[in-house]
């Protein structure tokens, strides 16, 4: 297991920033070589230099590492335009600069003995799961028995399906409106698949209702499950204590998403996740 990279602040150059689907962009930024040790599920925070509106930095998962002749030269993020910051981010061009802090937080655990995995993503939640799949392929984990469930409201929310298929992964798609794949929610095909399959672990990232449903299913099937959780953050470095979730009644303490997560073992988050 490689040792985790320590977080640091740097000025990153934008390599590209392109719209993949309406309202959804991928942005490539240069970063220090330390990101070679970033763990899938870890995130970064961004600030647009000199721009104080919106005020706070915004967190984004590392979507992929950008490599040149085998060396990490940058990171790619996948983001959805939802408000002030992401609107400004969408207008940034190659050659512009961003203030970058990372890599931050606890990522997914990858075990060498893993053979079969279920990846479950809701919309933009797919972002860290591609980095995770990349890392698993890199550690020679054969993903051909594994499966991906991608859910979204419409076909515009279904992202990265082709990346998973390029890893020989079976991809199941659901949309609320039926504009792509099966009509319905992502947990329906997951439950159907689990009736005759037993993965070593479920990795999930997406909106809270989806994570709750996935965690419930994992519990019902006694399966290990890791989820990446989002909260609003002020600092992203454990200083403000604004990102508290999931009070443990025994110890009377909260978890803090930016330092204890964003990836959590679903059973640790039981008060928060299980219905």
């Amino acid at each position, binding site marked *: 297991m490689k040792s985790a990279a320590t977080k*640091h602040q740097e000025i990153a150059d934008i390599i590209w920033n392109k719209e993949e689907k309406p309202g959804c962009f991928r942005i490539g930024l240069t970063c220090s070589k330390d990101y070679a040790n970033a763990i899938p599920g870890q995130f970064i925070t961004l600030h647009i230099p000199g721009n104080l509106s919106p005020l706070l930095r915004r967190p984004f998962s590392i979507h992929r590492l950008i490599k040149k002749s085998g060396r990490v030269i940058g990171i790619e993020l996948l983001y959805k335009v939802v408000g002030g910051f992401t609107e400004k981010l969408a207008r940034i061009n190659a050659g512009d600069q961003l203030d970058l802090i990372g890599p931050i937080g606890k990522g997914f655990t990858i075990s060498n003995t893993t053979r079969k995995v279920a990846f479950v993503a809701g919309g933009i939640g797919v972002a860290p799961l591609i980095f995770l799949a990349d890392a698993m392929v890199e550690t020679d984990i054969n993903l051909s028995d594994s499966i991906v469930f991608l859910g979204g409201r419409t076909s515009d929310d279904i992202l990265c399906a082709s990346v998973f298929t390029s890893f020989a992964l079976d991809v199941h798609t659901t949309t609320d409106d039926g504009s792509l794949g099966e009509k319905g929610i992502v947990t329906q095909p997951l439950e159907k698949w689990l009736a005759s399959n037993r993965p070593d672990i479920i990795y999930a990232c997406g909106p809270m209702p989806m994570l709750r449903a996935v965690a419930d299913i994992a519990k019902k099937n006694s399966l290990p499950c890791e989820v990446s959780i989002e*909260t609003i953050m002020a600092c992203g470095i454990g200083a403000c204590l604004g990102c508290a979730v999931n009070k443990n009644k025994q110890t009377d303490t909260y978890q803090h998403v930016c330092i204890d997560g964003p990836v959590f073992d679903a059973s640790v988050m039981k008060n928060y996740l299980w219905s």
Partner: protein
Amino acid sequence: MTQKNLCVDIGGVELKNPVMTASGTFGYGQEFDGLIDLDRLGGIIVKGLSLLPSSGNPPPRIIETPCGMLNAIGLENVGIQAFINEKLPFLNQFSTPVFVNIYGKTVEEYADLASQIDSVADIAGIEVNISCPNVKAGGVAFGVDRRAAADVITRVRRKTTKPIMVKLSPNVTDIVAIAKSVESAGADSISLINTITAMAIDIETRKPVLANITGGLSGPAIKPVALRMVWQVAREVKIPVIGIGGIMNAEDAIAFLIAGASAVQVGTANFINPRATIDILEGIESFMNKNKIDDIAELIGSLKI
């Protein structure tokens, strides 16, 4: 270029420069390790500490608002003893004076905290946060009542010889009256302002955004209010005043010094740029160079009216 003097005295503690970190925005310091050189700071004020560990308020605890943010962290902290045993040793690697911010629900709790800190050599001073509710007085903040505020400081003063900085709440009608009251009760310095009580509402759900309903507003939005209060207090008290509120850059910090602050604390800016304190320090130095100011004392309280 001549050597500039940036040293300031804030009531019994000599700082190598006037730039400190504000309580609750700098964790226990270690969070910024690797991001900035803590040795360059004028002073470090750690997260508010209580006698016993406290888990704080339920989430959501924070929300961004125009030019600022609301927080209702609810003073989540590890407790004074865990701080002394587990957090202070890290801070002691640096030459920067460490101030412990304390809060209690009763006067006795404040006094108890002060006596536990008094014997700890590595703590340079105590910042007393009087903005919290006084349980015995029905939840009204100590800091909004002249007598209650003085009472806390008198009791803390009896328990410690360490310099006492009193942090004032802006949620009062007459900030000068409170300032004078704590000065006569034995405060060595006054820091202001704490956050301004505020709220945000989600109009779709018609619910308050913060679980605590109300929270404290900080950031650039409060700077003009803070500046006004610092100016009002600094001209009325003899002890040093430390300016806090929306300081984002060197220009902001210099305005507070001109208004009469002997030093400043940087809060929310640490979240946006962890290097904010260092950038502010360097900005003050270049302002002094540009304006041929050799001693920071020439700036402090130099407002021309």
